[in-house]
């Protein structure tokens, strides 16, 4: 279901600097050397693919764009082959521009503060341990398919008040939207409709039987004039929470475990010094940032001296920014006790990820509980690691052997 098979409609890339493609298998497998080449060429590169698309390659250029809501619109947040009309309230506030952005975001912030996340932590620990119980005796596991994948989906389901047992349904929608949907409009629309229908049913149920979950919270929210939100806004925000809540953190946890499986020294250090885990999480977020957002150029301007033209999309690569050696010494190394780490994994500026506190807590708990119970693990040489394509990067198959190597 959630494999990485794609309709292969794009010709392979031969000239990365002038013709890059973030859905090319070479990029999907190992984007880091590609970004280095692009960065060496220019702070902003361009491709004719995807109907015209720029990519800032430096931290500075990414920061400039993220903070410039006048020339860059957030109404389209995924770089795709087509540009159909954007629905109003597609997924507020991530698809919102000022001035409607701020109230939409403020609505979502209180349930995601660090204090709110602390209350959720015991449930997260229980979920991680239930998952580990399911495979620890087997001696081997696909850690992406059986661990990292289910942690964020169950967390957000818990917060939204929808059944954790529907996790596979949610994961499939996300796969259709964020991966298959880049090249297949029908997949995307089908998933969005199914999601909206699902949430409409949930909203209907809560009218007669109120709850204290996030769905009820959004249903009961009032705008500045004291009016309830339009239904399209409630549905858009619910879709956003589900979409943003799943794939991203799944990927971040998976990449972290992938790194630890291949780096015994880091693993041993985190086991010996668990208090270092929060610092290590920041570094793993920097080095393996899962999320690349998009913007649409709406007014002509220059970025780091490079002219950009309206009508083009921008692949706003926070992952590439986080590998910029001008910003991070030894940017290509994972330094799990890196002290100065202004990474942009959760974005910069007004569109900073609303769920960043949730994601950090989930990553920390997922690594802590795993390392407590499975201190020794390594990649299974008989298996293959596969990576997702496009907007969110993370391992989708992560075959591990558990226990000490003999």
């Amino acid at each position: 279901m959630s494999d990485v098979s794609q309709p292969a409609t794009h010709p392979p890339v031969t000239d990365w600097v002038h013709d890059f493609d973030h859905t090319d298998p070479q990029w999907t497998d190992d984007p880091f050397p590609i970004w280095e080449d692009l960065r060496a060429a220019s702070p902003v590169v361009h491709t004719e693919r995807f109907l015209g698309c720029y990519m800032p390659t430096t931290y500075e250029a990414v920061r400039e764009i993220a903070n410039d809501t006048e020339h860059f619109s957030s109404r389209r947040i995924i770089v795709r082959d087509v540009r159909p009309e954007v629905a109003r309230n597609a997924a507020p506030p991530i698809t919102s521009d000022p001035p409607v952005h701020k109230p939409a975001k403020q609505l979502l912030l209180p349930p995601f503060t660090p204090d709110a996340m602390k209350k959720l932590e015991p449930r997260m620990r229980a979920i991680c341990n239930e998952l580990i119980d399911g495979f620890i005796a087997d001696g081997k596991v696909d850690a992406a398919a059986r661990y990292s994948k289910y942690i964020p989906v169950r967390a957000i389901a818990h917060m939204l008040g929808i059944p954790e047992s529907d996790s596979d349904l949610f994961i499939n929608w996300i796969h259709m939207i964020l991966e298959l949907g880049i090249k297949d409009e029908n997949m995307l629309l089908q998933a969005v409709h199914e999601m909206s229908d699902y949430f409409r049913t949930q909203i209907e149920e809560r009218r007669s039987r109120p709850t204290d979950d996030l769905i009820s919270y959004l249903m009961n929210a009032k705008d500045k004039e004291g009016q309830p939100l339009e239904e399209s806004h409630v549905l858009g925000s619910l879709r956003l929470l589900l979409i943003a809540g799943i794939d991203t953190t799944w990927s971040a946890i998976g990449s972290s475990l992938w790194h630890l499986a291949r780096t015994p020294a880091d693993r041993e250090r985190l086991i010996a010094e668990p208090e270092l885990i929060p610092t290590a999480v920041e570094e793993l977020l920097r080095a393996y940032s899962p999320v690349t957002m998009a913007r649409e150029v709406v007014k002509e301007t220059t970025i780091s001296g490079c002219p950009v033209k309206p009508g083009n999309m921008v692949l706003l690569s926070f992952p590439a920014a986080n590998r910029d050696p001008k910003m991070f010494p030894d940017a290509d190394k994972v330094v799990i006790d890196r002290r100065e780490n202004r990474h942009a994994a959760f974005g910069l500026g007004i569109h900073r990820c609303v769920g960043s506190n949730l994601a950090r807590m989930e990553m920390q708990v997922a690594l802590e509980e795993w390392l407590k119970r499975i201190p020794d693990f390594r990649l299974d040489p008989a298996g293959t690691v596969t990576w997702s394509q496009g907007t969110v990067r993370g391992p989708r198959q992560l075959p591990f052997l558990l226990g000490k190597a003999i």
Partner: protein
Amino acid sequence: MAERLKVRVDPDKCQGHARCKALAPELFELDEYGNAHESGDGTVPPGLEDKAWLAKSNCPEIAIDVIEE
């Protein structure tokens, strides 16, 4: 002993990444939206100077100033 330090959060720049609160809980408070402001008048108690600098160098929005008095 280090000089007396003060931390200050620029509310226009802060986007609520909460890194400051995680790294220096004594020096910062978060409001109901998760945006930060300095605790009290921002004076850094002796012994916490390092945390003040650490918070500054980890704020993704460059919203924190450390002022030496």
